[in-house]
């Protein structure tokens, strides 16, 4: 038996969440008395593959196949299913992101294995196998029992964190069968946003809402983000108005993120917005309305004009960095 992790890379480097998944899998494997096997699809160098051993993976299945250059839900599911069979895996871990959700759900049917999505912690019980997951867009938690012998979990990003536990890791080339009949979707074009921190990977996020008044005022948000090595985000009306690109929209209908630190600048804190950011470890709110609901979710708050506060905040951060 084993715990299998579906890893994800970005331009040949593992995403931060991959190391979190391996850490999480290691915790489960310890409880089950088994070991962690990671599956990597794509061009990832040996050094990166070995780095999975720092978090407890004892084996890495390395798949390199031109047919798998782009995510294809059906073909990828088939590859994971073959890895599950080879490693006799009884728990399979994915990230709760677009690709993780897409493959985990198909795999659930392929293996007839129960699925718990958006898990926030390691299973609270192994018999019955009980997982705590977000429900009602993070307004509550649900305890879900998986009744099948093979179990699939998608882990909410940043919910578990990284735990180092260095082990000897073996990298093994793996060549699963890829049927043409499963390659019915084709990626024609890719538009990558380059030079920006992946919002879902960012430790710090600086986000602006309608209180920023207009796209011309985003300079300080970008400057603060650059200073802190942070990603930038926005509320839904801001992206709907075209002030900012859609991929920055956070909230119930946008991206769900859980950075360590989230700056909400001129954001009212509507329940739908909070659904996407309430998992943040620390929330800072800057809003001129002392009764804005964002202050109920925030850890630190400044009641004031964001257009005045931001430049001062930038100056103060620069001072700190200069020390």
């Amino acid at each position, binding site marked *: 038996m084993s715990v299998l992790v579906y890893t994800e890379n970005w331009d040949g480097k593992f995403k931060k969440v991959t190391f979190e998944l391996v850490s999480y899998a290691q915790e489960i494997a310890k409880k089950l008395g088994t070991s962690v096997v990671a599956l990597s699809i794509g061009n990832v160098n040996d050094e990166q593959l070995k780095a999975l051993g720092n978090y407890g993976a004892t084996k890495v299945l390395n798949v390199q196949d031109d047919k798998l250059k782009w995510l294809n839900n059906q073909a990828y599911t088939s590859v994971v299913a073959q890895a599950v069979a080879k490693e006799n895996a009884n728990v399979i871990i994915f990230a709760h992101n*677009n*690709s993780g*959700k897409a493959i985990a759900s*198909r795999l659930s049917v392929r293996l*007839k294995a129960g699925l718990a999505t958006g898990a926030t912690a390691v299973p609270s019980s192994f018999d019955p196998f009980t997982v705590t997951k977000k429900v*009602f*867009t993070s307004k509550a938690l649900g305890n879900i029992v998986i009744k099948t012998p093979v179990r699939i979990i998608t882990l909410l990003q940043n919910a578990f964190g990284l735990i180092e536990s260095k082990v000897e890791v073996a990298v093994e080339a793996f060549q699963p069968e890829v049927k043409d009949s499963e390659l019915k979707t084709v990626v*024609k074009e890719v*538009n990558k946003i380059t030079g920006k921190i992946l919002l879902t990977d960012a430790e710090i996020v600086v986000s602006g809402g309608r209180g920023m008044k207009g796209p011309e005022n985003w300079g300080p948000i970008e400057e603060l983000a650059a200073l802190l090595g942070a990603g930038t985000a926005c509320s839904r009306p801001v992206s709907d108005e075209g002030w900012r690109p859609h991929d920055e929209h956070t909230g119930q209908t946008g991206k769900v993120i859980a950075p360590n630190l989230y700056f909400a600048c001129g954001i009212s804190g509507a329940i739908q917005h909070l659904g996407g950011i309430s998992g943040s470890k620390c929330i*800072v709110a800057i809003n001129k309305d002392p009764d804005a609901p964002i202050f109920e979710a925030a850890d630190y708050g400044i009641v004031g004009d964001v257009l005045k506060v931001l430049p001062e905040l930038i100056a103060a951060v620069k001072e700190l960095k200069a020390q």
Partner: protein
Amino acid sequence: MKILICISNVPDTTTKIKFVNNNTAFDIAGVQWIINPWDELALTRALEIKDAQPGIIENITVVNVGLIDSEPTIRKALAIGADAAIRINAEPKDTFFVASQIAEVVRKESFDIVICGIESSDYNGAALGGMLSEMLDLPSVSAVSHLDVVNGAVELKREIDGGQETVATQLPFIAIIQKGIAKDARIPSMRGIMTAKSKPLTAVEPIAADLLTEFVGFDLPKPKAACKKIDPDNVRELVNLLHNEAKLI
């Protein structure tokens, strides 16, 4: 072209979440029910295409797995503009079970495009579309943020972490959509509400299917400590706290 849109019946997004029966069931007292926001956008987009290119889409059907109390929500979908509706008379307790029911509908009556939302805003399964595709052995494209029909071919864009891909697919297929697909959800017109009454809403009995999971209890998150307010004339104090107290910068 025939389109099937899966709609789930969920509490309004501003609902205060509470649980009853010793925290084992969601408290439905006083709850307003709506079409799951993504499903509403999917329907809106299908109607936009239908209106813009007459003759391309001959039928838009919505399907819901739910008990009789989800009918007002289904009627709303008809009032917005769907042509027909199917309700499978069962409580949607487990996503595998729900997918099995919808798969049966698609096996009986073929559709060119089946659309699901990326997740239901109640139990956040985020799995139905994928499960359905696998049951029907159909290709699926997930996180679709743009869908159009151009010269008879489907044009799709999907969101990936840090970018966007343009994807081509064979029909039939399953589109798992997210926001961006349509700007604002359509609201029913007076005429729509009137005609909805005469549109077909067929209730069918469920087939036997397994439940792979079961919710056994719920918890509300622990209340947060009160927000520490910082004087707007002393922004430096915020940086100081973030550095020394929270140790985050």
